[in-house]
């Protein structure tokens, strides 16, 4: 305040007029009688900035331009995304494909990923199943054919004859020398003969020594030849088996080749599939015998279909089938756990062991969204262990690598797969509140490189005739979507007023669709219960009151404590060093105001204002800052050129929780000045407002609840026309007071004052002008300075 102002007598401060307390919406000004007459809102009311950012993010093709949609829960983030990204016409980010996993015949623990045009995945699966079915029918017949059996017989006979010839020749040679070649159960033996019969031992002993020696030598010689012949047998066995295999291969190919050639021809345009089919061809040929295990019931075609399951190695695991998609995939994953994001490999128990194969690979949201868009709740991603790390790693790598946590931490010893990673082309849209976004920006260095686009949703819109009408159409949209009764114009007007009240700004409207939807739904319920055919203002009011009432018990108990004078709050008379401050309690969506006594004491000291709350760690940092500002303001105002020889103490009486914020600064200064200068303050007034070092009063939050909190106490004790609340002038635009408060004001029983500087507040509370107050403070300061000097002198004399 400059000198000229100080010279002018201050005009008495008037309470705010009734119309300043509430920005009503006049139903008559609404150009419709019912919301049924309105077109649903096709645009995004108040979200131009977010829409622009989101459109940019969705269109931007470069890496890292993923989007984070910021906004409080219920503001309509998902709805906005859905509107800009319709599932039926979302533009593809790359080629939208079907993705399959197939067996890797060379390394079965590393299944191969196949990319196919949309709809071809299922076709390949069917074709493979059909091919296996065909082979199950053809191969047994092939191996049972006369031609094959004859060739097998021929082969066996060839070796039978070869062996027979070899041993027959030896047997003949031996026989000529009167030695018998005898087959034993496990080999051959040689024995001397006489007259075609095996010689008896006695007869052999009776032979001349020379003859015996000769016979024995002969047997030894034949044994060597026998061994030579026998040594050929394993070679012949091996050879016969090889020829038999070759024969089987030849016949297998006769059956398999046409089937596989047909498949290869069908997929000739797809080199990866062709390469896979080549591998299948080789494997089927090698394993042809397994197809020949026919069963009695195999003659029935349906049973053959069932038998296809016995050959899982030739299956095609269609991980992503986009055949039915009209556009690019838009996936909203509401449970973005680690496995739900990148997929998982399941196991089945077999004989007490967990086993798996490529058919047990399950897709994750990233697989399903590949080529399109993935929408995730940021807090859900962050709350799920390793989901955030995995999402970042996957986006950075540009490929989906399916791994299990067990695999990552090496905590299990079961069979694990390492499926071939799939290339990833996806736009991720995270939704979350601003706090989360800024936390990630601050603490996660990778976040800003992966989520370069922030779509910041507006929580409010300027209140104007145009926006009011758009808001009405928004109501219409919600009404239509939720199947609610229409609102008449009074209902719309009341809803608009509540939207402003909720935002604590008479000049703005809350865009919080969640709360708006809840209010409309409850109002609809009440209207229907009444049998009304539309929702009117009293339904809306009843819904608001009921919603408040459901959470109102704490406020009632709190106010009850004041009214029973358990909590000391004086609402009449004058008192020195105490003032009624106003606190607001936030309980989730519900908040209420409550008066609280703030007291101060002052004494000789060294110019320090003691914040008792701070001293006992009940005061927050902002409150401490506010007290320091007050201290500075006092010193600047009353002791600019000399020390301020006083110590003061401030306390929130009967406050047992923490105190935070600076909205009690005005009240604290009033209490301090009152305590210093011994000036009584009005107790029928309550005050709220923050201060700067120059004594200007600044805006605070929760102004409506604070006023209503003091009003409730005063009304309960009886309004006498002097009660009122002092608020910062800057908070006038925020006033959307309850109807009963407005009625009391209209009746002259309650007043709302707005002040822009501390002098106005002092005048209201003391009834004294600034000069008088300052003079009394300065006098007291002067007294304290004298006391201080005396004290110092006395102390010096003592020394």
């Amino acid at each position: 305040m400059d000198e000229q102002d100080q010279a002018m007598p201050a005009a008495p401060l008037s309470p705010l007029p009734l119309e300043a307390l509430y920005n009503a919406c006049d139903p008559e000004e609404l150009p419709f009688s019912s919301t049924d007459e309105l077109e649903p809102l096709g645009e995004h009311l108040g979200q131009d900035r977010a829409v622009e950012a989101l459109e940019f993010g969705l269109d931007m093709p470069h890496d890292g331009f993923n989007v984070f949609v910021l906004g409080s829960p219920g503001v309509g983030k998902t709805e906005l995304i859905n509107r800009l990204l319709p599932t039926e016409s979302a533009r593809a980010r790359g080629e939208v494909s079907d993705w399959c996993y197939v067996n890797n015949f060379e390394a079965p623990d590393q299944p191969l990923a196949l990319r196919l045009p949309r709809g071809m995945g299922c076709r390949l699966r069917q074709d493979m199943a059909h091919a296996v079915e065909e082979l199950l029918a053809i191969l047994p017949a092939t191996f049972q054919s006369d031609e094959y059996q004859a060739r097998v017989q021929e082969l066996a006979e060839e070796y039978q004859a070869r062996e027979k010839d070899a041993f027959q020749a030896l047997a003949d040679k031996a026989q000529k020398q009167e030695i018998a070649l005898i087959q034993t159960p496990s080999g051959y033996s040689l024995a001397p003969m006489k007259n075609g019969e095996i010689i008896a031992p006695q007869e052999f002993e009776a032979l001349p020594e020379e003859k015996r020696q000769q016979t024995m030598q002969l047997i030894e010689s034949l044994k060597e030849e026998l061994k030579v012949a026998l040594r050929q047998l394993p070679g012949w066995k091996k050879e016969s088996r090889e020829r038999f295999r070759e024969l089987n291969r030849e016949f297998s190919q006769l059956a398999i080749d046409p089937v596989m050639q047909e498949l290869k021809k069908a997929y000739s345009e797809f080199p990866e599939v062709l390469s896979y089919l080549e591998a299948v061809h080789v494997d089927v040929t090698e394993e042809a015998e397994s197809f020949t295990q026919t069963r009695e019931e195999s003659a029935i075609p349906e049973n053959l279909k069932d038998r296809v399951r016995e050959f899982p190695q030739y299956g095609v695991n269609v991980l992503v089938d986009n055949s039915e998609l009209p556009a690019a995939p838009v996936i909203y994953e509401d449970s973005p756990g680690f496995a739900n994001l990148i997929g998982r490999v399941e196991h089945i128990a077999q004989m007490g062991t967990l086993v798996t194969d490529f058919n047990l690979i399950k897709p994750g949201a990233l697989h399903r969204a590949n080529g399109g868009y993935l929408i995730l709740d940021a807090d859900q991603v962050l709350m799920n262990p390793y989901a955030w790390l995995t999402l970042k790693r996957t986006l950075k790598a540009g490929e989906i690598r399916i791994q299990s946590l067990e695999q990552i931490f090496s905590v299990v010893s079961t069979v694990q797969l390492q499926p071939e990673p799939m290339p990833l082309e996806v736009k991720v849209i995270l939704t979350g509140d601003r706090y989360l976004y800024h936390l990630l920006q601050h603490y996660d260095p990778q976040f800003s490189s992966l989520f370069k686009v922030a779509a910041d949703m507006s929580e409010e819109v300027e209140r104007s005739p145009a926006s009011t009408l758009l808001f009405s159409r928004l109501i219409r949209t919600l009404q239509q979507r939720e199947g609610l009764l229409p609102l008449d114009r009074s209902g719309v007007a009341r809803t608009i007023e509540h939207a402003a009240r909720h935002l604590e700004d008479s000049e703005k409207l809350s865009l919080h669709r969640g709360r708006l939807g809840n209010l409309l739904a409850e109002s609809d319920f009440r209207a229907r219960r009444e049998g009304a055919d539309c929702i009117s203002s009293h339904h809306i009011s009843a819904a608001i009151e009921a919603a408040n009432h459901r959470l109102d018990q704490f406020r009632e108990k709190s106010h009850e404590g004041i009214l029973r004078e358990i909590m000391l709050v004086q609402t009449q008379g004058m008192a020195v060093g105490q003032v009624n401050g106003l606190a607001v309690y936030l309980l989730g969506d519900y908040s209420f105001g409550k008066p609280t006594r703030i007291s101060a004491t002052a004494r000789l000291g060294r110019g320090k204002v003691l914040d008792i709350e701070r001293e006992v760690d009940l005061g927050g940092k902002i409150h401490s800052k506010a007290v320091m500002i007050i201290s500075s303001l006092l010193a600047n105002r009353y002791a600019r050129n000399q020390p301020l020889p006083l110590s003061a103490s401030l306390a929130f009486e009967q406050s047992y929780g923490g105190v935070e914020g600076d909205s009690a600064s005005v009240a604290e200064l009033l209490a301090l000045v009152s305590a210093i200068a011994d000036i009584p303050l009005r107790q029928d007034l309550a005050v709220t407002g923050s201060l700067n070092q120059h004594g200007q009063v600044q805006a605070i939050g929760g102004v409506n609840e604070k006023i209503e909190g003091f009003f409730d106490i005063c009304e309960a004790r009886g309004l006498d026309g002097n009660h009122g609340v002092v608020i910062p002038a800057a908070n006038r635009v925020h006033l959307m007071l309850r109807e009963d408060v407005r009625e009391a004001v209209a009746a002259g029983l309650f007043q709302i004052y707005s002040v822009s500087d501390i002098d106005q507040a002092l005048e209201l509370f003391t009834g004294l002008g600034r000069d008088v107050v300052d003079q009394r403070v300065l006098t007291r300061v002067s007294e304290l300075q004298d006391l201080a000097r005396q004290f110092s002198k006395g102390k010096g004399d003592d020394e």
Partner: protein
Amino acid sequence: MTNNDSPRILIPIDPHGISRETLETLVRIARQMNRGLLGLLLDDIRLQQAAALPFTTEITFSGTRERSLLRDHLSQRTSRVTLDTRHTLLGLAELNRVDLKFEEAPGLRLHTVLERDGHLDVFFPSRRRWHLLAPGPARGRAAIRRLGLLLGCGPDTARVVDAARLLIDADLVDESYVLAEGNLPPEQLAALSHPGHRLRIQCGARCDAAAITGLIQQSPYDLLLLPRSALQQIPTETLDAILDKSGSQVLVVN
């Protein structure tokens, strides 16, 4: 179940052993033909004689090892093989409710079992060592894929046809190959016809000893049904030798 009085099929059991598959086929045949089984435990006389010599050794198929063929060693091995065969046959007979008894006939040669009294059919197991198992199910396929029948070589042709018909009707046979000396009478043709069963007929088959010897030795069939009379003209020594090396299982119908 067959009873003690039922005619029997005789199976010579010697130290060379019989595969379980062969025994299974035999028991199924016996059940279908409503016959009991008689296991005749034989020695291999020549082998015994050779083992009696103090210096005789055996060169084994596996590893070409030379080992002693002393009588005691041979006896142990023979007992083990015979016991195994006996156990298997007992189990299969019980399972299929086929009457079974055993007799010991040391010193008897293979051909001599044909000369036993009674209406005994004789089953000679295959001695073929070269056997290539074609891919495909063993269970679903008939026990006898190819049945060979020699008809018209003696007065007991009707018995052979009867035996074949029983096996064919019981779906034990996939295909039958009839080797007939002359034309096949229509009633025999009708008896061997069965839905789903393939019948092939070759007329003009020879019934002389050399042809039958060759047939037994080179038999391409899984089971060859022969009338007893067809073997009468074959010298006993030859008969022993060819039965010892038969290419397929042979059922001599008496």
